[in-house]
């Protein structure tokens, strides 16, 4: 599988560079196409979150319906670290990642023996428990009001530091972190770990009989995805200049599933990216015409699940991929149990 021409096994591939080219230049053209800087930042934060989430859903086949809780915990942890410890960007982001990861560890211990719908139900319950704790633990989270006045901390490199008060600069911080996350995740899903995760998705029993500790693999995937969510949460806290409880409710947990699916996270590494971009652009464009944009978005989602469960990435593959296909024998089958390829 790892000959030199095969993208699998490399650190940087063409699609990764393409995504860098698009997102790296975004602040320069986003206003020209009628959108605004903050939208780019929002998209970047959610892309990071959804890519981490897809490690669980797309590669592990584990439908977590409580992941909104973890981006929320990341945001609160970032705020609390900033207010009560050291207002240093790296330390606060690290605190967001570690604290979210620890909460993820606690959740993983409870859910990693489950799969399928039971897994979904357990993660709903855990997500709700975190939601209620956050909404009642007023001294730390500010309860219903949220944590206000979270600062956009300067990017400190010791010798010099860069101010990221304006949205475009903060966007570039998010973009830099996206670059790191995307490369690491790409490498991870094509590593032996990713292979085993994909095998667990296809047939958990068989992987267990082969002697792998399925529990550990599922738990690690869960914890890693919550750590990525924590990072996204830290960025989100800076973007919003606050951390609020709404992000942790069930609706947002469902929304990240919806974004990942609509983009085609089940068949493609890039699915979550497509999905997030589509969601936010639909929100802004449909939202400009009608208050009930979620109605149309929901209908679109239903049609997609009915007729094209592989999502946007599946449509892309069938149209564009069909035109420029070089090796027809390697064309992936649309079977839903197949792991995302590229």
């Amino acid at each position, binding site marked *: 599988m790892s000959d030199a021409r095969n993208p699998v096994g490399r650190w940087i591939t063409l699609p990764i560079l393409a995504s860098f080219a698009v997102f790296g230049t975004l602040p320069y053209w986003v206003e020209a196409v009628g959108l605004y800087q903050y939208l780019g930042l929002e998209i970047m934060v959610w892309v990071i979150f959804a890519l981490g989430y897809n490690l669980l859903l797309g590669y592990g086949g584990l439908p977590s319906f409580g992941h909104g809780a973890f981006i929320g915990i990341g945001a609160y942890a970032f705020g609390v670290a900033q207010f009560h410890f050291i207002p240093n960007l790296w330390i606060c982001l690290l605190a967001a990642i570690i604290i979210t990861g620890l909460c993820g560890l606690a959740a993983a211990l409870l859910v990693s023996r489950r799969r*399928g719908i039971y897994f979904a*139900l357990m993660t709903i*319950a855990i997500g*709700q*428990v975190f939601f209620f*704790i956050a909404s009642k633990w007023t001294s730390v989270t500010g309860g219903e009001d949220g944590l206000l006045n979270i600062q956009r901390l300067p990017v400190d490199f010791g010798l010099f530091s860069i101010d990221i008060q304006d949205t475009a600069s903060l966007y570039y911080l998010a973009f830099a972190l996206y670059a790191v996350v995307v490369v690491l995740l790409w490498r991870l899903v094509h590593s032996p770990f990713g292979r085993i995760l994909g095998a667990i998705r296809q047939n958990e029993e068989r992987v267990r009989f082969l002697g792998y500790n399925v529990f550990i693999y599922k738990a690690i995937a869960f914890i890693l995805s919550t750590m990525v969510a924590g990072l996204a949460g830290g960025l989100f806290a800076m973007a919003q200049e606050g951390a609020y409880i709404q992000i942790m409710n069930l609706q947002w947990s469902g929304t990240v599933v919806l974004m990942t699916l609509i983009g085609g996270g089940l068949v493609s590494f890039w699915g979550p990216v497509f999905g997030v971009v589509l969601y936010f652009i639909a929100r802004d464009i449909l939202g400009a015409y009608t208050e*009930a944009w979620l109605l149309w978005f*929901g209908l679109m989602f239903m049609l997609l699940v009915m007729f094209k469960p592989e999502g946007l990435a599946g449509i892309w593959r069938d149209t564009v991929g069909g035109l420029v296909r070089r090796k027809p024998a390697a064309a992936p089958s649309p079977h839903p149990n197949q792991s995302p390829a590229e």
Partner: protein
Amino acid sequence: MSTATWLLPHLINGVALGLLFALIALGFMLIIGVMEVINLAHGSIFALGAYVALAIMAPDGGLPFAFMEPFYALPAWPRYAIALVVAPILVGAACMLLELCLRPTYGKDPLYGLLLTFGAALVIEEMIRVVWGSSEYYLPIPRDISGGFIFADLIYSTYRIYAAIFACAMIALLWFFLNRTPYGAVIKAGAHDNEMVRALGFNLSRLRLLVFAFGAGLAAIAGIIMAPIWGVRPVVGIDAVIPAFVIIVLGGVGSFWGAVTAGVLVGLAVALTAAFVPDWSMISMYLLLLAVVTFRPRGIAGRASILER
């Protein structure tokens, strides 16, 4: 006054709440059984039931059609009784459309059914917002079952006692329907082995359509009964579907009495925490769920099921 008597009204509230939760969960379970679909839209259907009843009953929030005018002039009892019968039928019929949408997902990963109904939940909730707006309504109820009464120095809510009795009657009827009629036998057989039911010459597609409508109708009835307790808001669906989930997992999939027991347990847990630590009332059922499922993965009376695939 001893603690036990002081608790009595809370216990009655808990039982009423629990029986209504059980009613929602039973409809939910029928759909899981026959269609192997986790219907995330069940809560939105519950809310829709309350809104449709509101439209039938009240000039405020009601239908703006002229032909409804003489109907609105009727006394409260007949209007309430008609709404209680007609609204679930309308909702059940409308939900047949959702079952038709679900058909492409049959036989695939259960995740697809779950996702489709998640989309449907969004759509139904937004439709409610478009038609009725986001503000809260109260379903008018006949005076005989509203208000409260005092018994041995304690205030009891009449409506909650009515709700508990009504839910009990519905659960008993449902049990009778499933276990003592030929229709119930076909439904139970469909939950046990779809292919065999088809092989015996029953129209499986029609069975699924009717069972889905029936389950949705049960949710709508529960929505109407719950409306005076919770108020009628678009987001009320989530408060209904989550307890249904919890009850199914707690009671065990496929077990009628498991669901009823779990329903009452959840209702009591919610009502008792509400009595002592009101802030934490909703979290108690999740903790109950996590505790039970950690030690008894299939719940109180569960068997192997679709949920584990």
